[in-house]
């Protein structure tokens, strides 16, 4: 049924034809929503790029609707996209700046810090960033100069801004970061990519590294804030109660029956206690899942001593505190899925899930 061109040598030409065909409608959709011509052109380019990459999957009759939908999506994403927002405001840094008049001195110091931070960037990075942010040169012409694509330039600008924020924060610190992991962790936080943060184990690093915990504070909001997730720092007995109440709240909001929310809350109580007893501090993250089906996921992690033999901790009756060995194996029985990852010296992470409907 697909009447799009095949994916052989003619694909490139076909893609260009497609661009010509849909360009007017994409311009119209974007133009109606974005008044700034430079920004609009950026968005048109991005839309066309997406259409070209999907070209051989689109039916001929569906090209225009697809183009319209894509353009609207790109515009909508733009409004959420902090980078473009930052660019519009002609600010390279997206940190909260002091607003009170008495903070003028601090502001002066910040400018000095920005200059130093910029100095730490590579020559090319700095030139591009300044050309884009200060002179307002768009990504397309920057790409033309660099012999690259607008998308690639935009991605690089994004990384440069993320680095600039980190360098700026580091210049405010008296000393260098204590570990080799610190800078990549801070960069991941600044870039806002959850995936990268997960890959690096950012959460665990922040728990164990006071330096990063302090420096990263202004960066923590950079990942998209989600309403369907609650993060509870766990440092003492009272936090165990807070964590299980948070879990109950999230589960109830998702539509769990009371019996089920109590199972989740009880399991969270156990894993949170495990943090307090063995690691001293950590955090419990409660989030809702929609894929592959509705459920609640709880991540409890600490950067404590870890376990040499995690399997032992999951055996009933094993415990090194209080003669009570039901905590982790009990929590496992309460949830549908339960994964314990622990490394001596690095800490422990328990990830457990309860699905809204049982199998």
């Amino acid at each position, binding site marked *: 049924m697909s009447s799009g061109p095949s994916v052989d040598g003619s694909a490139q030409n076909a893609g260009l034809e497609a661009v010509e065909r849909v360009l007017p409608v994409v311009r119209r959709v974007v133009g109606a929503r974005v008044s700034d011509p430079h920004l609009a052109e950026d968005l048109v380019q991005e839309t066309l790029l997406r259409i070209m990459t999907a070209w051989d999957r689109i039916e001929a009759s569906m090209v225009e609707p697809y183009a319209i939908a894509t353009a609207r999506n790109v515009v909508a994403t733009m409004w959420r996209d902090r980078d473009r927002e930052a660019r519009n405001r002609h600010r390279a840094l997206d940190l909260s700046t002091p607003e009170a008049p008495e903070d003028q001195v601090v502001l002066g110091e910040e400018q000095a810090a920005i200059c130093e931070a910029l100095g730490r960037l590579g020559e090319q990075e700095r030139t591009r960033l300044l050309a884009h942010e200060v002179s307002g040169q768009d990504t397309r012409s920057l790409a033309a100069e660099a012999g690259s694509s607008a998308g690639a330039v935009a991605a690089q600008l994004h990384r440069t801004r993320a680095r600039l924020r980190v360098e700026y924060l580091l210049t405010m610190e008296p000393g260098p970061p204590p570990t080799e992991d610190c800078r990549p962790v801070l960069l991941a936080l600044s870039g806002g990519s959850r995936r990268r943060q997960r890959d690096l184990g950012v959460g665990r690093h922040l728990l164990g590294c006071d330096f990063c915990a302090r420096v990263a504070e202004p960066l923590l909001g950079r990942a998209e804030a989600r309403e369907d997730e609650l993060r509870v720092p766990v440092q003492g007995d009272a936090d165990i109660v807070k964590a299980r109440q948070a879990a109950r709240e999230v589960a109830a909001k998702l539509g769990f029956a009371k019996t089920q929310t*109590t199972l989740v809350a009880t399991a969270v109580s156990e894993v949170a206690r495990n943090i307090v007893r063995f690691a001293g501090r950590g955090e419990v993250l409660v989030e809702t899942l929609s894929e592959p089906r509705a459920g609640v996921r709880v991540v409890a992690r600490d950067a404590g001593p870890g376990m040499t033999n995690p399997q032992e901790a999951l055996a009933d009756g094993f415990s090194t505190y209080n003669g009570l060995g039901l905590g982790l194996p009990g929590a496992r029985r309460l949830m549908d899925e339960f994964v314990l990852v622990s490394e001596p010296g690095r800490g422990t992470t328990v990830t457990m899930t309860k699905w809204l409907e049982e199998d």
Partner: protein
Amino acid sequence: MSDTGPALVSILRQGSYLVASVHTALDDTQMLRFQHDLVERIGTDRATGVIIDVAALDVLDSFGSMTLRRIAEMARLRGAETVIVGIQPDVAFAMVRLGMGPGEVPTALDLEEGLTYLNGHRDGQPGSADRPPRRPQRRP
């Protein structure tokens, strides 16, 4: 008792029994303080029976359950029998799933049932309230 504060728990005397009610979720520290206060009261009041009302608790995890068991054991050593009342349906199910099923400590539906249980057992040996209590035995 004064350490725990009136808002979290209350321990009232009723005849030769103590009725201890937990009014809100307790953290582990508060739970241990409750244990300490209650066991002390059993001694000073020379109580023969203790009813612990946990109807207000929305979670009884392993620590909470073990603390209740410990209280019952300490009470027994001081000559008082303990019955736990008011475990909510969802809490009961979670306790069982967790592995904290019915143990040696008797349980009853509510305060009234708890009193009935203690009255029926004053002269007998401690046992589970959910089994038929023995017929009252007269002291020789």
